[in-house]
C-alpha cells in the first residue's frame, strides 16, 4: 500500500516536472521591451545637437498630439533604410512630430547624415554617452517609440521601421 502511494507521488511529480518544462519550452524567450507599451515615458532632459542652450523635456512633448522618438546614429546602417519612412511620416501626417535622438555619435557625422538623407526631425537631441537611451528602455539602435500627448507609449519598434510598421504608425495616429 505504502509502496503504491510512493509510486503515485513520484509519478505525479515527474508528470508535473515535465509539464513545467513543456510550458517553458513553449514560452517565447526572445527578449523585447513590448511590456513598456501602455506605460508612461520617464522624465528626461534632451539637449539640442547644435545648441547646448536649447533643450526639451517630457513636458514639451505633451503639446504634440503624437510624438515619435527615434534613436539613430550615422554609423548605424539600418538607420539609413528607415530614414525614408521617417521623412514620409512627417509629410503624410501633421499630427505626428518626430524627435530624433542621436545615439553615441560624432556631431559632425550626425549633421552630415541629416544633410545627405534629409532631416525628418522636429528636434534633434544628442545622447553622447547613451544614458538617455536607458530611460527609454533602448538596447540597440535604431529603435522608435510612439507616444501620445499623455506621454503614454503606444508602440515600440525595435529595429528599423519598415513598410508594415510605417503603415501601422499611420493607422495609430489617425
Amino acid at each position, binding site marked *: 500500500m*505504502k509502496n503504491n502511494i*510512493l509510486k503515485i*507521488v513520484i509519478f505525479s511529480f515527474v508528470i508535473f516536472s515535465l509539464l*513545467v518544462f513543456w510550458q517553458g519550452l513553449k514560452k517565447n524567450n526572445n527578449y523585447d*521591451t513590448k511590456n513598456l507599451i501602455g*506605460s508612461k515615458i520617464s522624465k528626461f532632459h534632451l539637449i539640442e545637437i547644435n545648441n547646448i542652450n536649447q533643450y526639451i523635456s517630457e513636458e514639451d512633448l505633451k503639446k504634440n498630439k503624437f510624438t515619435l522618438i527615434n534613436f539613430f546614429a550615422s554609423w548605424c546602417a539600418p538607420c539609413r533604410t528607415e530614414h525614408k519612412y521617417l521623412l514620409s511620416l512627417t509629410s503624410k501626417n501633421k499630427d505626428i512630430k518626430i524627435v530624433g535622438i542621436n545615439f553615441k555619435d560624432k556631431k559632425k557625422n550626425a549633421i552630415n547624415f541629416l544633410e545627405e538623407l534629409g532631416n525628418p526631425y522636429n528636434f534633434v537631441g544628442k545622447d553622447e554617452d547613451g*544614458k538617455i537611451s536607458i530611460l527609454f528602455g533602448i*538596447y*540597440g539602435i535604431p529603435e522608435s517609440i510612439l507616444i501620445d500627448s499623455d506621454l503614454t507609449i503606444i508602440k515600440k519598434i525595435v529595429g528599423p521601421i519598415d513598410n508594415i510598421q510605417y503603415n501601422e504608425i499611420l493607422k495609430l495616429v489617425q
Partner: protein
Amino acid sequence: MKIKIFFFISYILIATSAYTSENQNNLLEVYKNLRCLVCQGQSIADSNSDFAATIKLVVQDQFKEGKTEDEIYKFLTSKYGEWIVYQPSFSKNNFLLWFLPYAVLIFGGFIIFAIVRKTKYNRVN
C-alpha cells in the same frame, strides 16, 4: 607635530581608499546581478559591450544619487522587464521558481527517509 600630520594624512588616505573600495564592491555586486541583454550568457560585470558600458554609467549615477540596490533594480526592471535581473523578485508568476527547489529538497528527503526506513525494516525481519 610632523608625526601628527603624517598620521592624519595616512588616516585620511586609508579611510578614503576603504570607502572607495567598498563602493566599488557594491557596484560590482549590482553589475553581477544584471544581465547583459545583447550578450550571450554574460552579466553586465562580465561584458564590455556598449550596452553594458551604458548600464554601468547609469548604475554609477544612481549610486551617487544615493539610490539603494533595490531601487536601481526596480528602475531597470521598469525599463527592461524582469529579464534584466538574474534574481527576479517574488511574484505570482514565478513563485514556483522560488519554492520548487525547497519542495524538491523536502520531497527528496522524504523519499530517502522512506527508503532507509524500509531497508532497516527488511533487515530486522
